């Protein structure tokens, strides 16, 4: 049963405007977007606006509780850790290492993943079958294990973690993009385009890409939340960011021995991680729902 779409309005809004209208009507997604943007700005500007240096030690203020506590001082709003480093500054810089690098990793994955995914989607026969099976095998290796193997080859370190995460995220990404392209390719308007004599590149440029880029953004948010989690997890396991680096997972692992004495040094990085992942997921979910609604309306 075909559903006809009639446009009653005089001026048809662009699909992107429709999408934004649906997205806007979802308040939690909008809040998620604001938090996401705030964190992104923080990630860029953290070294400039942080009140203290990342590794600046204040010998007279060790394990200071947050300022709202009776024993806290207002100079150190979120308190200090075992080495007298201001927790607020470290957490702000952690936004750069954890969230900023996760965005970088997700962007790089997108760039590589879209190219390879489109290629995989457009090829037919033996080439595509070989590629798919290669993907299946890499999908079977758990992402953290793959990251660990790559860390074992390259050695631990923050930048190596980023490479490891890109490699670990890629198979899933290529898989999703390939499915999107294959889905789009089987639709009638692409067939019509092909019958009109359009070549592969034209079909890709005018047919497929404009119709899948919004879905790619959704995949991007999904891989971003995985990237944040993985960077933090590797930092926590001391396989990623090494000790003095201000990375949320590493800060958490560093202060683990203080968990009884100074629970806020463990709680705060965890809360920030949670907020970062939550906001990313909210934006992703909001986008997904907005896309569904637009298709239904």
């Amino acid at each position, binding site marked *: 049963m075909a559903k006809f779409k009639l446009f009653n309005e005089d001026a048809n809004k662009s699909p992107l405007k429709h999408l934004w209208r649906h997205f806007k009507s979802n308040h939690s997604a909008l809040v998620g977007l604001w938090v996401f943007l705030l964190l992104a700005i923080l990630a860029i500007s953290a070294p400039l606006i942080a009140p203290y240096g990342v590794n600046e030690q204040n010998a007279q203020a060790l394990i200071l509780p947050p300022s709202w506590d009776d024993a806290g001082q207002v100079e150190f709003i979120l308190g200090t850790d075992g080495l007298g480093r201001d927790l607020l500054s470290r957490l702000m810089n952690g936004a750069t290492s954890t969230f900023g690098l996760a965005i970088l990793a997700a962007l790089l994955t997108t760039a590589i993943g879209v190219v390879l995914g489109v290629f995989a989607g457009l090829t037919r026969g033996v080439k595509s079958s070989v590629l798919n099976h290669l993907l299946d095998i890499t999908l*079977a*290796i758990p992402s953290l294990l793959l990251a660990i193997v790559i860390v074992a080859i390259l050695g631990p370190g923050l930048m190596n973690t980023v490479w490891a995460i890109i490699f670990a995220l890629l198979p899933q990404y290529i898989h999703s993009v390939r499915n999107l392209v294959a889905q789009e390719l089987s639709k009638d308007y692409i067939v019509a385009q092909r019958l009109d004599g359009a070549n592969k590149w034209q079909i890709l440029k005018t047919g497929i890409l404009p119709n899948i880029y919004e879905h790619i953004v959704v995949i991007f948010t999904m891989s971003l939340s995985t990237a944040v989690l993985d960077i933090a997890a590797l930092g926590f396991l001391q396989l990623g960011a090494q000790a003095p680096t201000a990375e949320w997972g590493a800060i958490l692992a560093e202060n683990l021995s203080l968990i009884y004495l100074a629970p806020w040094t463990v709680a705060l990085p965890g809360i920030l991680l*949670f907020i970062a992942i939550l906001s990313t997921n909210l934006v992703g979910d909001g986008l997904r729902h907005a896309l569904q609604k637009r298709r239904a309306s």
Partner: protein
Amino acid sequence: MLRQYLVRRLTLLFFMVLLLSLFTFTLSYLFPGDVSTNLSGIDSAGFNANDQITEKYKLNENYLLQYFAFIQHIVNGDWGLSLASGQPVFEHVKTLFPATVELALYALLISILIGIPTGVIAAAYHKKWQDHVIYTVTLFAYSTPVFWLALILIMAFCLQLGLLPMSGRISLLFEVEHQTGFLLIDILLSNNTYKQAALIDAFHHLLLPSIVLATYPTAVLVRFTKDAMLDVLDKSYIKSARAKGLNHSQIIFHHALRNALLPVISQIGLQFSTLITLAMITEVIFSWPGIGAWLINSIYQRDFPAIMGGLLTVSLFVIIATMIADILNTILDPVSRNRSHGQV
């Protein structure tokens, strides 16, 4: 039709295992250090022993023969020695891997038992308050880093309330003979006088890690089940069922549920990869003597034969689990055997 499909799947399985072994073999060259050390786990051997290793792994021959020698040793159960302990890697894997599988299976069981009914409820009450509550809870569960959740639960239940033990599989008071490697089964098989107490103790140890491990897969399953249900509820045959005058629960249980659960089964198979990833972190935090904690320790100690062995075991497990779920899905759902069937 089904047999043809099974043959294709098994061929695919064969090639995947082939590629996996090739990848593992390549790692012995990619890892820092000597190839002979990475393969055999014998460091700075004497002159004679060195020759023996070269002979054993055919390191002077071409890569293909080296690969075949490697495969031969793997199949024979000779996975080299662990650089850290000097013990055979295969023995380590044999004792450690069941612990991980046990933990993962219980977590998966929890997530299936909670996730699927919750997802069905969320779909049945779509856009009502029940749905919103479930959505919010799953979003939170979905976004919590697993290691942080584990720490919070340890703080609350082990350190503050003192209700549950915080590390290990069983109290050291109990001595359980290693038979299958699955602790609960081992306890039942053993002829210990304190069987019941041991079982309760093991259960206490198991509770917190499996809850932590189950959180993320549960959230994924709830979301997936809900989406699958909503998809099915949108179909025309549901509309006609409603037009016939069936009520809401009849439609959900007799018409929608069976069809919605089919994609969920294959989704459960896909969960294994995530589950193992999370299990590795959970094991480290709860000092669970499984393969994940061992693998991460192997990285700290640059124990390359152990990493290779662990990678091979875990990936093989995930591949076979995914394959079984896939085949199960095919047996239950004839449409998935050939996508062109049953389509309009």
